[in-house]
């Protein structure tokens, strides 16, 4: 009899476990086969920067945040603890659109190979998206091409890895600009649409928003320090998604 009770309990417990763990969770997108996986964390109210100065702002609580791959039905709802995951994204270049209560607050452009895992950390400040970090972890590398000094114009640049560049802006605005950079043999295109702007030294501004506005009007010839992720690199050009742009001198 005790054995029967134990078996009954074990069977029901197993059913409960399967029921709790299986099935479609709120943040599971349509099932895909292979492709790219994006895992992310959204920081919100109360996020504080340490060892860095900056305005202390808080995002409104209890707003539903969703992430969608532009042009597809792949969408994920950010969970209560800020995590989300998107699967089955076609390899190549795609755009992640972040929305709060259905209103777009920002987007991030990502380039990733098939089988890659993209890790994104963003913060929502006053309904504005701030990119903290994006990393692309690729699949097993394919056999390297024959060594060529023009394989990537950025010395030691590795696609999908973090990068810091210092140089001068050739053209563009606060959303996207082209720059020359130390250690790069060609122009680098920077996607700064989700980047935080800081003006330092001779370019000091009253607020970071004023810094970004000033840069937007007169980006050319500015000296900048860009921190972000190298999204693509060839022998002729490179493109970077910036998390932070420090403007040092106009």
């Amino acid at each position, binding site marked *: 009899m005790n054995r029967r009770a134990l078996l009954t309990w074990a069977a029901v417990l197993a059913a409960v476990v399967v029921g709790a763990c299986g099935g479609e969770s709120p943040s599971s997108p349509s099932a895909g086969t292979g492709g790219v996986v994006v*895992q992310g964390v959204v920081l919100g109210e*109360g996020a504080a920067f340490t060892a860095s100065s900056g305005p202390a702002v808080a995002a409104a609580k209890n707003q539903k945040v969703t992430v969608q791959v532009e042009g597809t039905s792949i969408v994920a709802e950010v969970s*209560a603890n800020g995590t989300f995951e998107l699967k089955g994204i076609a390899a190549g270049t795609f755009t992640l659109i972040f929305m709060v209560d259905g209103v777009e607050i920002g987007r991030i452009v990502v380039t990733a190979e098939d089988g890659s895992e993209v890790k994104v950390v963003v913060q929502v400040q006053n309904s504005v998206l701030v990119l903290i970090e994006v990393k692309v972890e690729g699949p097993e590398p394919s056999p390297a091409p024959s060594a060529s000094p023009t394989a990537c114009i950025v010395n030691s640049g590795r696609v999908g890895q973090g990068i810091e560049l210092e140089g001068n802006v050739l053209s563009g605005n606060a959303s996207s600009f082209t720059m020359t950079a130390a250690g790069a043999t060609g122009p680098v295109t920077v996607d700064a649409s989700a980047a935080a702007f800081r003006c330092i030294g001779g370019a000091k501004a009253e607020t970071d928003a004023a810094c970004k506005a000033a840069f937007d009007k007169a980006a050319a010839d500015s000296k900048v320090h860009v921190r972000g992720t190298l999204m693509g690199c060839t022998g002729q050009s490179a493109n970077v998604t910036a998390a932070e742009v420090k403007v040092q001198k106009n």
Partner: protein
Amino acid sequence: MRAGRVLGLAAALGLIVPLADAAPRRAASATGRERGPDVFAGYSYTHAGEAGLNGWGLAGAYPFRGDLSFVADLSGHYGSFAGADLAQLAFMGGVRWRARAGQRLSPFAEGLLGAARTSTSVAVAGTSIEDADTDWGLGLGGGLDYRIGERWSVRGLVHLRVLWGEGATDEDPRFSVGAAYRFGR
């Protein structure tokens, strides 16, 4: 559909205890130790949002009427996801219904209310960015004690935690295994 899962869990647990209760019982000890308060400590795992977190669980139960006890449950879970470190500390309290004590196998069901505080931190280029948030929620679950001594038992526990926060509702399963010690009168 998710409400159905929660109701299904509650219904399943509502069947479990009577089924186990139908099994022949041993004669209750004259000391009534089987009905005394108990404490539990053990390993715990939860799938919180999209992250799998490992940690610990502590619980205490105090009987107040028949097979019913007041329960206090504290747990801590830790891990990383998408390059960020996550830590979740949860405290919940509620009621436990246990099948008649005295058997070597003693199942129970419980319903809890409480809150979970999740802390997130990410280090980027020498800068540390931290965020913390508290979400209210409830826990439904049950467990099974296997008595290995006069006062000691090995316990397995399953909870479904429903947490509300940031405009989202999370249903996080949690599994614990550890040791329980029952105090006598």
